[in-house]
């Protein structure tokens, strides 16, 4: 077996491990599927009843790209938690004592997360269609929108894997969980940024979540506020750049943190 086929085999074994785990914990998938329903009810009907979309338009059409962004962002927590659990319980040390290709663990985790993330996105899309959301620009831009989401999920997943490896403890990751929600809220996902104070507005406009959400609104043809900030004027390019930058930074950091032997 040469190095490359061995590396691929290791990655596949790790991926298979995550799939088996998921079969043992169907609750996790159920939660991932229920989350979008809950979000649509909460934001679409509870908050949405009091929010006005700039230039008119249905709030739920405005909201859907925001919810997609939120679901994509859960990749950080999901990956951090899975990785920290392995690191904290000694499974990772056993794997590190085996002749396993160094990057098989983080890559297997990343691939497994993408696979579990897709049903969540599909569930959200179906719920959206039920409450009146539609992609208006046709099939090709809609597919591009989903591709963009998967790219961003992968990028955020690597950030999560690195965080999990650095924290090494599921309880620490759990303690950080409440911080992740505001990060998605500090964006254009749920309300237009125009009404915000200037300093907050800048923060929100440069949040990668905002780029993704703006890109989705453009590709799905959903209502959007007029863009002023640079990343929101070219949201598709900004999202691709954000994703590549996150991957370029956190993929090597994660592999290094996994391989590092100073524990």
């Amino acid at each position, binding site marked *: *077996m040469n190095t490359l086929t*061995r590396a691929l*085999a*290791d990655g596949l*074994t790790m991926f*298979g*491990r995550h799939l*088996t*785990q998921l079969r*043992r*914990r169907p609750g996790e998938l159920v939660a991932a599927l229920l989350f979008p329903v809950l979000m649509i009810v909460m934001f679409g009907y509870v908050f949405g009843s009091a929010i006005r979309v700039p230039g008119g338009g249905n709030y739920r059409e405005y909201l859907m790209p925001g919810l997609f962004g939120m679901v994509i962002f859960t990749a950080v927590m999901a990956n951090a938690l899975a990785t920290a659990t392995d690191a904290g*319980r*000694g*499974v990772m*040390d*056993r*794997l*590190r*004592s*085996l*002749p*396993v290709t160094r990057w098989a663990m983080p890559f297997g985790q990343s691939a497994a997360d993408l696979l579990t993330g897709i049903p969540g996105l599909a569930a959200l899309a179906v719920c959206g269609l039920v409450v009146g959301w539609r992609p208006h620009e046709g099939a090709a831009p809609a597919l591009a929108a989903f591709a963009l989401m998967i790219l961003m999920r992968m990028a955020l997943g690597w950030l999560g894997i690195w965080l999990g490896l650095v924290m090494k403890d599921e309880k620490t990751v759990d303690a950080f969980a409440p911080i992740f929600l505001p990060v998605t809220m500090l964006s254009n996902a749920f309300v237009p940024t125009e009404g915000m104070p200037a300093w907050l507005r800048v923060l929100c406009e440069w949040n990668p979540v905002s780029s993704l959400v703006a890109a989705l609104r453009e590709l799905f043809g959903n209502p959007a506020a007029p863009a002023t900030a640079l990343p929101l004027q070219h949201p598709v390019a900004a999202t691709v750049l954000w994703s590549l930058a996150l991957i370029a930074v956190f993929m090597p950091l994660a592999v290094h943190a996994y391989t590092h*032997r*100073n*524990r």
Partner: protein
Amino acid sequence: MEDPIVVAEGLHKRYGDTRALRGLDLEVAKGSVCGVLGPNGAGKSTAVRILATLADPTEGRASVAGFDVVRQAGEVRRRIGLAGQSAAVDEYLTGRENLRMFGRFHHLGRRRARQRADELLERFGLADAADKPASGYSGGMRRRLDLIASLVVDPEVLFLDEPTTGLDPRSRGEIWQAVRDLVAQGTTVLLTTQYLDEADQLADDIAVIDHGRVIARDTPDRLKAQIGTRLDVVLADPADAVRAAGLLTVRAGRGEPDLSGERLSLPVGEITLPEAVRELDAAGIAAVDVSLRRPTLDEVFLKLTDRPKETV
């Protein structure tokens, strides 16, 4: 030592200001069982982690089966098994799934990995629980699964880091039997333990570690011989204790006697049991029980590390 399979030379390990190892030297002969004993925090686990390629030494060198643990970590990993405190199985997976996964990580191939998992489960009495998730296993079953997870390929050297800590006596016995079976096949074992009877039961050789260094290295028998024989006396009347201790110390004592109520224990040199009884009888001291025994490894250990027993 002839043909050592594990060699550590001058290992140092620092974590920030903590110095976990301070010049640890250790050799383990091929096919032997080396018991590494030490109080908590003495550096046992750190030594195992370095030898098993999980951590790099700050200074010094180590090799396993002729391969350097830092520069040739991949070769070392192909030849070792690690079980105990430093390693775990995936609790969401069944025993069988765990073993198959580890087999595939050893690049056994799908079919061979399946066969090997079935063989091991059968041999170590886990066949009935094989298809239950490991999270539902009892403590003893989980340790056994953990142990056999390190045997997926026959390791040349097996590192057992406190393999029975927290287990009930019956489960400990099962793990011990499994280790003995492996040793009979020629596997070299490096075992860390807090239980001295475990080392006594399993090890050919003992290394006592304290403050990150090996402070004694010998067979259990010779370590015990170092501190001589002990004479234990249970007196009919506790009031005789001091007199009896003085008498026996003058006759054959080799150190301070331990007195506690009617019980008296003292390290002795040349004395036979009848001589000790006659000595007490002549002085009119009535004894309920008199026995001459070799020291336990606990006594050796406490003497060597010079610490109160609670910290062991």
